């Protein structure tokens, strides 16, 4: 099915929208850490131990992430190949935004960040639960979180990564509506909302990181 260009484009959009949904959910849980340690621990424990989340949603999510970036690279390679003799002078900025032309760049930064993020949280978490099979501790999450944001370097990297995530979302979110065929009188409203999301959510994540760095 994903053999035609439009099918690939739609698949890219749908996987992107799915990841955005996840991002919203992730943010909602994280932001509770700012005002309620208890709520954060409760939600984290639930997500970490609910079998539906762990064995159904988590694999789907991982598939979504892998699919999105693999397809992103495939498309980039294909697109590059469609113009093998390059322009001597190409004024991309005259007709398209920087973010829309550099999704691969912002995507690579976000992907590298995901590597770091997995190393920081997901790998220890998997190790804790499934390798070493340590006893369940419903109150450990908040401490782990705060601990990670001690290092100013890591906070800096996080913040920078989220800036790129914002750029990626700024084009990607609105663009996915176009890809699935929605371009009508609501498009302006959609653009506005998606831009707010694209800037707001990453800013929120940066805020959380800095907050814990300063208060931790």
């Amino acid at each position: 099915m994903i053999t035609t260009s439009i099918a690939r484009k739609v698949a890219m959009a749908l996987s992107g929208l799915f990841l955005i949904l996840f991002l919203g959910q992730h943010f909602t849980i994280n932001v509770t850490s700012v005002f309620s340690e208890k709520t954060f621990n409760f939600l984290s424990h639930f997500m970490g131990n609910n079998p539906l989340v762990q064995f159904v949603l988590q694999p789907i999510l991982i598939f979504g992430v892998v699919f999105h970036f693999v397809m992103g690279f495939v498309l980039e390679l294909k697109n590059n190949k469609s113009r093998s003799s390059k322009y001597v002078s190409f004024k991309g900025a005259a007709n398209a935004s920087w973010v829309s032309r550099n999704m691969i760049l912002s995507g690579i930064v976000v992907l590298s960040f995901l590597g770091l993020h997995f190393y920081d949280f997901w790998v220890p978490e998997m190790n804790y639960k499934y390798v070493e099979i340590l006893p369940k501790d419903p109150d450990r999450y908040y401490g782990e979180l705060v601990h990670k944001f001690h290092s100013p370097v890591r906070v800096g990297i996080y913040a920078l990564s989220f800036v790129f995530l914002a750029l990626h979302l700024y084009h990607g979110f609105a663009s996915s509506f176009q890809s699935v065929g929605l371009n009508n009188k609501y498009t302006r409203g959609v653009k506005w909302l998606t831009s707010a999301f694209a800037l707001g959510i990453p800013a929120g994540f940066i805020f959380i990181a800095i907050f814990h760095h300063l208060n931790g």
Partner: protein
Amino acid sequence: MNLTLKIWRQANADAKGEMVTYSIADVSPDMSFLEMMDMHNEQLIGNGEDPVAFDHDCREGICGMCSMFINGEAHGPDRLVTTCQLHMRKFKDGDTITIEPFRANAFPVIKDLAVDRSAFDRIQQAGGFVSVNTSGNTQDANAIPIDKHDADKAFDAATCIGCGACVASCKNASAMLFVSAKVSQYALLPQGKVEATDRVMSMVNQMDEEGFGNCTNTGACEVECPKGISLENIARMNREFMSATLKG
């Protein structure tokens, strides 16, 4: 005006091309860009050099044959014009102008600035038509009233001149704007709806076969399109394609 021209010279499809620098004097601001190119060619011929090959025909912005990439943009810096409608008053005395062919693997260079855009023809041949014979026995033209808004939108899509500026401007060399304009025109009209499913599938398949890139919604095509064809058409084609895929 006195200008410096940097022009892509390539003897034929297999030759290796390069930019060559020329200078030209006494260009009038009232000239069209192609008239400036004519003047330049007259000079080259006078000097015993090979004139620059470029495509052009109607010189009033409707045939879609002219196709230069000027200073990094398809049809140059002005908006809603083809190269033949671009006038030298848009440039300043002393400017250096870079002139390249439209570049895409699907548009191989024939010579200098002339490229082969027959890929567009093949896409249309795959399904860009209504299958009705020219027998003269069709029903009366007013038998099916058409909502004016749909008719106007179909017209707007149909104004595409097939110049290829969308492909040339797209960083991915995607032909989505061109193909979607044709798909939209027919999808919006009752006469075209009948075979909409097969049409969109065949045209998109042909588009992919020709080696155009994928659309990443940068919107460059819409900005550079001399006829202002809207991105809405691409969204409509995506919709048409999805519903055709689901229908199977």
